[in-house]
């Protein structure tokens, strides 16, 4: 091979490698252009800011869920946990504590409840699906009990995380950006992140290597709970009210964003950046459908189709990549372990 051809191939390999890791970028851009073509208002600066604000709650909660799914777990209770946080904030903390203290206390409360999930998964040996299916109902029940199923209006003092503007940037965007970047950093570059990936890749290998498996599992559910609380603080700030059905079914949207972002439900593979892209795509679809005047009844259909389409096509960049780097692949004895990306 000649030198220029080789370097071209390297550049191509890198680009495709990056896109192979995040195939959603292509899908997101495509959707973006489609909506822009239909409705020019879609690409105005104010709408882009709008999309980011709308995506913020999902970005924050999805980051927490990514940690859980990376260990091979799942959290069905995230929506209920957010409601629980909102209920406690609106009916007990408010008026008793200064607004800022009340706001800070909420993520701590949800973190504690979240780690209860983790304790059950880690030490009682109950599958995460069942633990969080149970806690979904318990959390929502506690929230309903505390609020007596009433609705509350949130006073302005508690709305800073939703309404505020920091350095000219809306607070939800700032908070979501910090959470996503920090989350990605922790998962990729810290010992905890490495342990999360190890536990998800093979729990018994991690245990045999002397990793603190139980501690890691509690930690990821605690992170999930913490970020559910943060997401709720932002969401309440934006909505300005709590009602009994708040975030009912939100767990499915969160899991959709995580899976759409390429995190494997078996654990071990995936990441926060992928989830962020998944959350943005879901929001772009929704925002675009609203702006183009589509019937609100089809939103769920479109979301489901996007998820399936993404999963069906996600292998394409990988296949392209393996074709490009075929000269480096090891000869594998079984085709079932065929060439792969990493």
């Amino acid at each position: 091979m000649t030198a220029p051809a080789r370097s071209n191939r390297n550049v191509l390999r890198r680009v495709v490698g990056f896109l192979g890791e995040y195939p959603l970028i292509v899908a997101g851009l495509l959707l973006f252009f489609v909506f822009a073509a239909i409705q020019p208002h879609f690409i105005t600066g104010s709408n882009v800011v709008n999309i980011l604000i709308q995506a913020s709650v999902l970005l924050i909660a999805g980051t927490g869920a990514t940690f859980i799914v990376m260990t091979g777990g799942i959290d069905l209770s995230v929506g209920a946990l957010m409601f629980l946080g909102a209920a406690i904030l609106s009916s007990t903390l408010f008026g008793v504590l200064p607004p800022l203290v009340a706001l800070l206390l909420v993520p701590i409360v949800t973190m504690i409840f979240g780690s209860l999930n983790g304790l059950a998964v880690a030490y009682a040996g109950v599958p995460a699906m069942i633990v969080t299916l149970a806690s979904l109902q318990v959390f929502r029940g506690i929230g309903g009990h505390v609020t007596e199923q009433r609705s509350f209006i949130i006073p302005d003092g508690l709305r800073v995380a939703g309404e505020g503007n920091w350095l000219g940037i809306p607070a939800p965007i700032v908070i979501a950006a910090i959470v996503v970047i920090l989350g990605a950093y922790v998962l990729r570059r810290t010992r905890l992140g490495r342990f999360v990936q190890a536990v998800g890749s093979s729990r018994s290998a991690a245990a045999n290597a002397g990793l603190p498996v139980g501690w890691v599992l509690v930690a990821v559910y605690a992170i999930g709970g913490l970020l559910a609380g943060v997401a709720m603080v932002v969401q309440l700030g934006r909505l300005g009210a709590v009602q009994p059905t708040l975030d009912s079914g939100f767990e499915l949207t969160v899991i959709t964003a995580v899976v759409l972002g390429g995190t494997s439900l078996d654990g071990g593979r995936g990441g926060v950046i992928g989830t962020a892209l998944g959350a943005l795509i879901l929001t772009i679809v929704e925002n675009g459908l609203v702006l183009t005047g589509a019937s609100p009844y089809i939103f769920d259909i479109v979301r489901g189709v996007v998820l399936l389409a993404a999963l069906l096509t996600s292998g394409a960049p990988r296949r392209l990549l393996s074709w490009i780097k075929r000269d480096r692949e090891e000869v594998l004895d079984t085709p079932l372990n065929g060439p792969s990306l990493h």
Partner: protein
Amino acid sequence: MLHHTLTFRTIAFSLPKKVILNDAPDPDNAPETGGVAVDLRNVTKSFGGVSAVRGVTFAIAPGEVVALAGENGAGKSTIKNLIGGILRADSGDINVFDAPQSSGVAGLRAQGVSTIHQEISLFPHLSVAENVLINRLGQYSSFNVSQRRLIRDATPYLERVGAHFPPSTLVADLSTGQAQLVEIAKALADDPRVVVFDEPTSSLNLAERERVLTLVEDLRDTGVAVLYIGHSLDEIFRISDRVVVMRDGAVVGDEATFDLTRSSLEQLMVGRELAEGYPALEKPGETIALRVRAVSDDFVHDIELEVHEGEIFGLAGLMGAGRTEAARAIFGLSTATGTVEVQGRAVRRNDPRAAIRAGIAFVTEDRRDEGIFLERPIRETLTVVSLDGLLRVPFLGLIDRKAERAAAASQAETLRVSARAGLEAQGGSLSGGNQQKVVLSKWLSTNPRVLILDEPTRGIDVGAKAEIYRILARLASESLAILLISSEMEEVLGMSHRIGVMSGGRLVGTLDRAEADQAKLIRLATGGAL
């Protein structure tokens, strides 16, 4: 003749069941061979531009056992999958009884081809009988499949493979070895004329292994064509009429077993002369590195042993004798009583992290599921136990990526892990031998004083095995104490200073290398006295 000693050894190995010396298959005595059962001509298959099988040509006659030998990655599995109908060849012809191979597994079954895969493909929540007859369930009433009738019909096949558990048992409740026997019974129920065995004995105990080898001989005698894929040269010499040797996807030898010796076969497989046998071991030191006192748990009782610095202590025994369980108890992976000391200092019990800190390392039996992170970069497996020393800000747990990469690279270098796609490739892309080396390097990075290895060479090809032996000898010479668990008697005999034999969860005897031989080990392992 070397060949005959080997045959004899295999028999001694399976004492006391079988006393008749089963000499090499007599070519004149073979049942009349009506043509060719399976015929591969110039078969080629590649995956994504990488050729796995190149121009392979060989044939199997009815009533003949052909062994397919070769190192991992030589293309044996691809051949198995091509004959078994799981893959289609890119070019070339595969004929079954002079007719072109039909496509798909069901069509092949009609042609009489059964493949017994190494990975067990049974339905865990169905009974043994249902699994055995699964391909024939259509013959039963579609409304009410009578369990009694299924059990009656499945029993002969189960008896034939020597399965002594009730046919109504759920497959999920079987051991791996038992499930393997069911898998074979299922293949027999299809009434095959061609059977492909893929390492059928790797998870079996001695008695089961003997039963399966006898079964292969029975099949041959009734005119079935058998393709036998296996790593054990003993088995290949015992049962095959012909050996087809593959290397790098091509056939490099097709010889009557009678004309081969062990070393000529190894040479064909590896493509070069192997260093003779096991490496020399240096004299161990005086200091006791590992002292185990009265360790008991649910599986093992009163384990007492000492391993000196620089000593390799082999642990032999039959499958289920409690060797793995003893290692797990010593390492702290079970709730055990008793004491474990490393260099005179007691190790906190039942806490693997304390064991690691005290200097014990444990290379587990199942490296794919319990040792290496298949989907993560190789680098991450290499550094996972020594990550604490690779942090930039220990309090926050920030990983120093440069230091980590350097550590991983030097570890891989020390044991000469050959990862052609680099250390960022997934663990699962490595060959078995290299995976084992990665797991070993992972543990060596903790600077252990005591290394426990459970079946370190299982499923590893000849060349990589020899390399692992050299590594172990070198580590011992660097005064590491090694506890070596192995089901291969030869390996234990060749690689240990002293050998402990386990039976029924107890350590029933310890022998010096000089006084040990296979017969003594077997006698102890089967509950006899010396």
